């Protein structure tokens, strides 16, 4: 009876076993890398907004404090996009005829809110509260970057779980004094670890790496 398979089939069989393993690992690696890349997390790309609002102009140039518009960050879970009334506080007198501000005037006239596009959108299975982070010494720029230098607003941090847990497991690397929370240009000092450990103690910062801290 003639042989069904040629002798070379042995080598091909061995190679294909190795090849299958390598291919599987490669696909896994690509999925892992792409899922954590800015392509998947949506970092660094400002979404189109109904009004091309510039934090660089309002906060960086005019020196308006974060809390003028986002005062609820200090008290509640959400920092809050300000209502049209807050824009109108100043824009009832300045830049009245700017075509860029047409949606603001329209919104004020009709009472229909401006539909801003959310830049930092956490998955719906994540609980997040701004006020506790501010109380424990996490500055705005730690997560949002130097917003007061952004012409249009984009997401700086990946906002994935690994990124959250990095700080939740080692807060001393990231926390700052409460007096510096709204300083967008704050940089960790050379002795950050020493400072961080002192603040962790002083502000009673707990590590909070339990599932139900964020997944409630």
């Amino acid at each position, binding site marked *: 009876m003639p042989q069904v398979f040629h002798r070379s089939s042995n080598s091909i069989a061995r190679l294909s076993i190795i090849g299958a393993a390598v291919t599987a690992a490669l696909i896994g690696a690509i999925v892992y890398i792409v899922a954590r890349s800015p392509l998947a997390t949506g970092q660094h790309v400002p979404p189109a907004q109904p009004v091309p609002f510039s934090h660089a102009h309002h906060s960086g140039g005019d020196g308006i404090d974060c809390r003028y518009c986002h005062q609820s960050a200090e008290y509640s879970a959400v920092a*809050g996009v300000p209502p049209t009334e807050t824009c*109108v506080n100043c824009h009832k007198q300045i830049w009245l005829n700017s075509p860029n501000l047409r949606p603001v005037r329209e919104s004020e006239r009709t009472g229909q809110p401006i539909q801003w596009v959310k830049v930092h959108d956490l998955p719906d299975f994540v609980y997040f509260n701004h006020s506790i982070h501010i109380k424990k010494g996490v500055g705005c720029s730690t997560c949002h970057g130097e917003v007061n230098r952004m012409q249009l607003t984009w997401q700086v941090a990946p906002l994935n779980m690994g990124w959250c847990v990095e700080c939740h497991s080692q807060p001393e690397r990231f926390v700052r004094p409460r007096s510096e929370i709204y300083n967008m240009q704050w940089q960790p000092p050379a002795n950050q670890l020493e400072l961080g450990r002192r603040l962790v103690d002083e502000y009673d910062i707990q590590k909070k790496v339990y599932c139900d801290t964020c997944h409630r």
Partner: protein
Amino acid sequence: MSIRSRSYDLWLKLFGTGQRDARQTGGGLNRLAVGVLAVALLFVSACASNHRDQPYYEAQDPSAFFPDGKADRPLPPNTVPQGQLRLDEHLYQGTSNGRPVNTFPFPVTAQVLQRGQQQYNAHCVPCHGFAGNGDGMIVRRGYSRPTSYHDERLRNESLSHYYDVIVNGYGAMPSYADQVYPRDRWAIIAYIRALQLSQNANVRDLPAEDQELLNHPPTPAAGDEGEGEEGGH
């Protein structure tokens, strides 16, 4: 939601085709391949939906259901949220039996003044300026210039007047009731009083050691003392 139903449609279509093929060709292999594909597709759909966007409203979400387009609902008329009864007229209305007051509803401590400074710098400085002269950045950009806090009339106004202006606005100034919360309003008023004092202080009112410092200023060697102040805002 839509992704899931779409993949379910696809799955039905594929599965249906597989059955027809099986009847026509009589081969089980075809049906197996379609089954495997269908299971794989289910995984794809699970990846894509992933509970990332669940069908509930988040704060400030838009809504097609309500005429004003907002998912956030205003309070129904004649209701009071729990914990917001606000019976303390002094703290919440800035008056006592409807008459103006010149006292604070809580003791003004250094902490209150510090809070007042932060809140003043966040909400008032754009127009009133850091020293309260009315030369803030928005005024320099063309907004009506407010009266200086160091003006004789404002120096003599009661605390109630300031509280009323924060809540109801005055002249070109809009209401800040939604942006500044009651206790912070009082903290801001305390800080405004401190600003007024700072511009009209008498040297003799200073403690002895500060007078000494004023008469014999330290040599510029201690040059970094100014930087500590920056962190205040």
